[in-house]
């Protein structure tokens, strides 16, 4: 099977950086986008994994749908016909009653942005938004999704325009390896709605106060995002990214590429 480009649109700065590091491969990169072996080479030539890892993380964060041929699963037991919306388009398929929403998204619909971390509801990497609520797709049976509206990381951007939360995660370097990032971002996007709605959390000072839009402190964000684990420990940057989207003030960017690398 032809290797799929990881992403095809590079910014001018990214293109320049790559050109310097991998002049031989540039033609191919420009015509068909970055592929996984380019990353491997990038790791090798830079000697430091920073740039490559960062690009890999960005790929997770901007994950978009890869067209795949619908492959009927080999064996379905107790098949259930289910029809639901995913990122705005209606999907009708027959699923095994055991099939989780996560596996359906990844294996049947080619939406591999949502990640399988623990598969037991303990890490949050599989977080998607169902009917405006963030949920764990690894513990959601696809059969329960009839008529529901599912939004995954692939559905957040509008064309090439990233969702503000995606932009903010890049600006604040809210990831290293990027594996938990789609779940973090979906979780954070839904969190904005919950805060606006005045929902309380365990660290809310007084739950008896009348509901009004919640001002999210760092402590509030940490508590409300505790269902999303990041093994790289990018938490401070994740909190900054969310604060920026939540507040009207820009939060200072805490990192930048070293001079001359970009």
């Amino acid at each position, binding site marked *: 099977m032809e290797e799929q480009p990881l992403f095809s649109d590079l910014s001018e700065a990214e293109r320049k950086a790559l050109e310097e590091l991998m002049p031989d491969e540039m033609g191919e990169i420009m015509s068909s986008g970055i592929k996984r072996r380019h990353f491997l080479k990038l790791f090798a030539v830079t000697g430091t994994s920073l740039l490559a890892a960062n690009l890999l993380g960005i790929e997770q964060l901007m994950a978009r749908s890869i067209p795949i041929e619908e492959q009927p699963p080999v064996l379905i*037991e*107790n098949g*259930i016909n289910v029809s639901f919306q995913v990122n705005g388009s209606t999907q009708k398929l027959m699923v*095994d*009653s*055991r099939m*989780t929403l996560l596996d359906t998204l990844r294996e049947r619909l080619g939406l591999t942005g949502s990640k399988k971390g623990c*598969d*037991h*509801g303990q890490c*949050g990497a599989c*977080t998607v938004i169902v009917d405006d*609520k*963030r*949920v*764990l797709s690894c*513990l*959601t*049976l696809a*059969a*329960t999704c*009839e008529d529901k509206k599912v939004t995954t990381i692939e559905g957040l951007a509008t064309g090439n325009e990233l969702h503000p939360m995606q932009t903010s995660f890049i600006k604040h370097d809210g990831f290293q390896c990027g594996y938990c990032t789609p779940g973090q971002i979906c*979780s954070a996007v*839904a*969190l904005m709605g*919950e805060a606006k*709605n*005045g*929902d*309380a*959390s*365990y*660290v*809310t*000072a*007084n*739950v*008896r106060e*009348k*509901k009004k839009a919640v001002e999210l402190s760092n402590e509030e964000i*940490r*508590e*409300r*995002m*505790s*269902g*999303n684990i990041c093994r790289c420990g990018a938490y401070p940057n994740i909190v900054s990214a969310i604060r920026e989207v939540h507040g009207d003030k820009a939060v200072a960017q805490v990192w930048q590429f070293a001079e001359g690398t970009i």
Partner: protein
Amino acid sequence: MRPFKYSNASETAAAINAVVVNPTARFLGGGTNLVDLMKEDVMRPSELVNVTRLKFSAVEKKENGLSIGGTATNAVTANHELVRENYPLLSMAILAGASAQIRNMATNAGNLNQRTRCTYFYDVNMPCNKREPGSGCGALHGVNKNHAILGWSEKCVATYPSDMAVALAALNAVVHVEGSDSTKRSIPFSDFHRLPGDHPEIDNTLKHGEFITSIDLPANRLAEKSYYLKIRERSSYAFALVSVAAALETSGNRIKDVRIALGGVAHKPWRARIAEQWLTGKEATEANFKAAALAELKNAKPLEQNKYKVGMAAKAIVRALEGAMQGGNYGAMEADLTTTN
């Protein structure tokens, strides 16, 4: 996961009947615990009946209190204005549990039906009388630092994991259920979950096929002085080592009504009735809180690795009562914790 039959229930009687006639059928709520246990092969239902579309998701005023729907989610319940205003203890307890994602999925009925997180129960290669009656209890002389200190038996030392249920125990909630042939009954919360005794495989007093339609919260005058304290190994998204739901009604500084329930210490939410009786009619002072806590925990029987829980529970009772006296204000409590710890 083993294969199972699945249906979306649209009618209550039919849903109940489907489970009644099949001894290995189960209702499916949010699935946050059941689906996980099925992946682990701990639970092996042959059929799931999804009840989340049945019309039991309302939170509404009743003549003498509030009724919360069995299929309402934990998140909706915790953030309902009537719950926040009148039963802040329940809001706080629910919000102390799990994560935002899980609370969006989990139903109230499912919360009461969740299983212990004892690692021996989860590991199918280990003995566990709850999972496989007669196989023994791996935790009794095994790794038992998270286990019970009250009310356990030689057959089982597991604890009940829910935070919500601890608040419901303190609030004298009543569980309404519907069974076959539309038989309805109500179960006082203290009779809902059970101690393990010789049958740890039975978590609660529901009969097979009985469906939790709603949970009633009687009116009370505890809202102003309520606090849920949860102590855990990380500051969020972890099960309780010890938790305390505390609520008081005072006249001046004299205690008219006091409710104390403990989580993480027993096979069911542990209503601290000895401490409550000790405190009723007395002054709300730290010394009295301490004496009451010690009276309650005099009966504790810790295991090899969880002796710490006895002292922790005693201190947690005192702090939770103090938190309640301060109006359940989380910020104030946190400041207090950092200075007195």
